[in-house]
C-alpha cells in the first residue's frame, strides 16, 4: 500500500497501464497489480452518485443534471479493465417521483456491468422508497465479492413521527426533507431495525475480512443543518469496530471528504449534478449565512460539469484507493495510507500544493 503514496496512480495511468497490458500480454496485469503486493486480492469498482434527475414538466428534465449522469455513465463504460461492478450512491431523483426515477434508471441502464444502488433521501421521501424498490430492489443488503464483505444501508430514515405524522402530503414531506438549514427538517438515521439486521449480518463475517459499507449520508457527524449527519452514527460505528479493515463510502455531500474514526476509513463521492461548498462549520468563523445564497463556491459557473465528477475505486488487500474523476480539474486520488492509518489525498498534503479558497465579494 505504501507504494501508492510514493507513486500516485491516476486515472490516465490506470487506462494506459491497462491498455499497454492488453497490447503486451495475454494475461491482463491490472494497475492494482503494479501498485500492491497481493494481486489476487485486488479489484476495482466504479462509484457514481447524486445525479438529482429533476423533472420540469412532462418529458422535460433539467438538462444539466441529465448531462452529468449521461457523461459519468459513458465514461465508466470506457474503463479498462472493466470494473467488477458499479455502485450508485443515491439521490438519483430530485423530488422522488416516478418519472424522475424512471428517467434516471433509463440513463443508468446504459451502464455495462452489474449495478448496485443505495437509497438517497431524494429518492425516498415521496413514496417512502416504494417505486425505487421496484426499480432497484432491497433498501439494505450485503454481498461478498472477492473476499470483501459489502454492506449497503439505507441511512436516510428519520423519526417515525416526522415521517408519518407531520406532513399533510407526501409532496410536502419530500420538499421539507430536500431543504438545507431547514428548521422543519429531521436528522437522518439508520434506525433500530437495520442496526439489528447489520449486527446479525456481521456476526457471520470473520474479523479479518475487509468490510466496505455504503450509505447515502455520512455514517459520521459533520454538519447537522445539511444532514451531513447520521443520528445513530456512533451505534453503527460500534458494530463495525470489531473488524480489522472497514471502509465507509457515502454520497450526499457533493464534495470530497475523507476521515478516519478508529478502524473506519470514510470517503465521500462527488456528485454528478452540482457541487456544494463547505458548510459553515468548515469556515471556522461565524459567517451569519442565513441560508445558502452562493450555490457554487469554487466551481466555474460556465462549465456546468466543473466540480462534479464520479470515481472508481481500487480495493487492494481490503483497503481502498479512490480515484476522483473531476471535469476541468486534475484527477484526485484519496488512498488509505497504511503507515499513517488513515486515507489521505495523495497529491495535496503539502501546504504549498493546496489551492486557497476564493474570496467572495
Amino acid at each position, binding site marked *: 500500500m505504501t507504494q501508492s503514496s510514493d507513486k500516485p496512480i491516476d486515472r490516465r495511468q490506470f487506462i494506459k497501464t491497462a491498455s499497454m497490458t492488453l497490447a503486451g500480454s495475454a494475461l491482463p496485469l491490472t494497475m492494482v497489480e503494479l501498485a500492491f503486493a497481493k494481486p489476487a486480492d485486488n479489484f476495482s469498482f466504479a462509484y457514481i452518485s447524486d445525479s438529482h434527475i429533476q423533472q420540469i414538466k412532462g418529458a422535460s428534465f433539467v438538462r444539466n443534471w441529465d448531462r452529468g449522469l449521461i457523461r459519468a455513465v459513458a465514461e465508466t463504460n470506457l474503463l479498462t479493465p472493466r470494473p467488477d461492478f458499479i455502485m450508485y450512491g443515491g439521490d438519483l431523483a430530485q423530488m422522488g417521483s416516478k418519472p424522475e426515477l424512471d428517467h434516471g434508471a433509463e440513463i443508468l441502464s446504459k451502464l455495462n456491468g452489474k449495478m448496485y444502488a443505495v437509497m438517497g433521501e431524494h429518492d425516498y421521501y415521496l413514496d417512502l422508497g416504494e417505486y425505487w424498490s421496484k426499480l432497484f430492489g432491497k433498501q439494505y443488503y450485503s454481498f461478498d465479492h472477492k473476499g470483501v464483505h459489502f454492506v449497503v444501508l439505507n441511512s436516510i430514515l428519520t423519526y417515525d413521527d416526522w415521517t408519518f405524522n407531520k406532513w399533510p402530503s407526501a409532496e410536502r414531506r419530500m420538499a421539507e426533507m430536500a431543504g438545507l438549514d431547514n428548521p422543519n427538517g429531521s436528522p437522518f438515521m439508520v434506525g433500530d431495525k437495520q442496526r439489528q439486521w447489520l449486527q446479525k449480518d456481521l456476526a457471520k463475517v470473520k474479523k479479518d475480512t475487509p468490510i466496505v459499507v455504503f450509505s447515502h449520508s455520512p455514517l459520521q457527524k459533520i454538519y447537522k443543518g445539511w444532514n451531513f449527519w447520521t443520528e445513530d452514527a456512533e451505534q453503527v460505528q460500534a458494530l463495525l469496530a470489531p473488524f480489522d479493515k472497514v471502509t465507509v463510502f457515502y454520497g450526499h455531500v457533493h464534495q470530497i471528504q475523507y476521515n478516519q474514526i478508529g478502524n473506519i476509513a470514510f470517503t465521500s463521492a462527488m456528485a454528478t449534478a452540482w457541487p456544494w461548498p463547505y458548510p459553515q462549520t468548515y469556515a471556522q468563523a461565524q459567517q451569519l449565512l442565513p441560508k445558502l445564497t452562493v450555490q457554487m463556491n469554487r466551481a466555474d459557473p460556465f462549465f*456546468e460539469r466543473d466540480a462534479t465528477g464520479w470515481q472508481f475505486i481500487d480495493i487492494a488487500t481490503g483497503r481502498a484507493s479512490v480515484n476522483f474523476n473531476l471535469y476541468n480539474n486534475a484527477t484526485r486520488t484519496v488512498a488509505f495510507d497504511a503507515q499513517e492509518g488513515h486515507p489521505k489525498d495523495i497529491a495535496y498534503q503539502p501546504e504549498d500544493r493546496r489551492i486557497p479558497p476564493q474570496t467572495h465579494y
Partner: protein
Amino acid sequence: MAPPIHTMLAVACIGFGAAASIHAQPLGLPPLHIPADNPQTPEKIKLGDKLFNDKRFSSTGTVSCATCHDPAKAFTDSPLVTSEGINKLTGTRNAPTVINAAYFALFFWDGRSADLEDQAQHPIVNPVEMGLANHEPVLNVVRTDPEYVSAFRTVFKKEPAQVTMKEVQQAIASFERTIISGDSPFDRFYFGKDKTAISAQAQRGFDTFLNKGRCVSCHVIENDQALFTDNRFHNIGVGINRIQNEVGQFAPAFLKAKAAGVDVDKAVLSNPKASELGRFAVTDSLDEIGSFKTSTLRNVAVSPPFMHDGSLKTLRDVVEHYNNGGITNKADHVNDFLSGGIRPLNLTDDEISDLVAFLETLTSPQFAAQKAAMANPPSCNVKTPSLIAAAPRSMLQSPVESSARQP
C-alpha cells in the same frame, strides 16, 4: 518585432504588407513571447520564410508548408474542407491558420505539439501531408543548396554538416512568429475606442458574444488585448457526433494500438475515427474525448469552412451549431461527452445574424483586402484595398481606416 511578411508580398497581385512591424504592437494583441533559445533576427525570419515555401521538403516536390497555409488564403487552404497533401491525399482536419498561431500554448487541433518549433517537423513526415519517410531529404537540401548553406552559416553559425532539424524548425518558427495580425475593426472599436469602427448590428452581436451567446467564456477577450482563445480543449459536439455510437469500442481499441506503438500524429490524420477522439488521443484522458483546441476567431471570416474537420460551411452554420447546444441538426443526438459549457442558447434569428456580423469585424485589414481581391479574381486591380496596395510598408504599421472596413 519583425520585418514584413515577404511571402505575402510575393504571392498576391495586390501587394499588401506586414501584419507586424519591428516596433509597433498591433492593436488588440498582447506582447508576443519569444523563446530565449530562439531569438528573432531578420536573417532567421527570412530563412524561415524560404523554408516555409520550399516544396522540396515533400516526397513529390509539390507540397510546402505554404500549400496548406497559403499566405494568399489567410494562411489556410480555404475553401478546402480538409487539407490536401502529396498526390491529393487528404487528411482529416481543416488547416488552421498560421496567423497569430504564435500566441497558442499548444499546437495542432489536439495540442499534440508543445511549441511552434516542434510543430514544424511533423507535417513533413506525415504520409498524407508532405509524405517524406524521414527528415533526411530536408537536411540534404539545406546542407547542399548554396543559398541555404550561406543562410544557415549566417543565422546559426553552423557549417552544412552541423545543420540539424533543430535549426530548420527554429527558423520556420521564427518566421511564423512574424505572422501576427490585429488592427481589426473590432480592435479599433473596443481597444481604440472608435465607436464608429463597427456597425450597430456588429455591436449588438458583440453584446450577444459577451452575454447570451456565452462565446467569450472560451473565446477570451481581456481588458487590453484579445486572442479569442482560452488555449483549452472542449468537446463541442463536432466530429465526435459522427462516431458516438462507436466510442465505446473505438476509444479502448485506440489506446491499445497507441500502447503498441502506433504514431499518434499519423493515426489522427489518416484515420477519421482516431481523429475524432480529439485530445483524448494525445492525453488518454477520459474527460477530453472529442475535445479540440479553442481556435482564435481573428480573421475567421476569411477562412471557411470551419471547425477542426471543416464540416461547417458558414459562420451562420457555426453559430447555429452552438445555438442548438452542440448539435448541427436539431434532431441529432447530443454526444455523451459534451463539455459542460455547451448548452442550447435560445438565440433568435436576428441575434444569430448579429453574432455573425460581429465575427466579420475580426478581420485584419490585410486579410479583408485579400478577401476582396479573391472575390474579384480576373483583375488584380481591386479598388477597395488600393490604398494598401500602393502604400509603402511602413504605412501599414497603422492601417488606413477606410481600407480596413468590411466591403
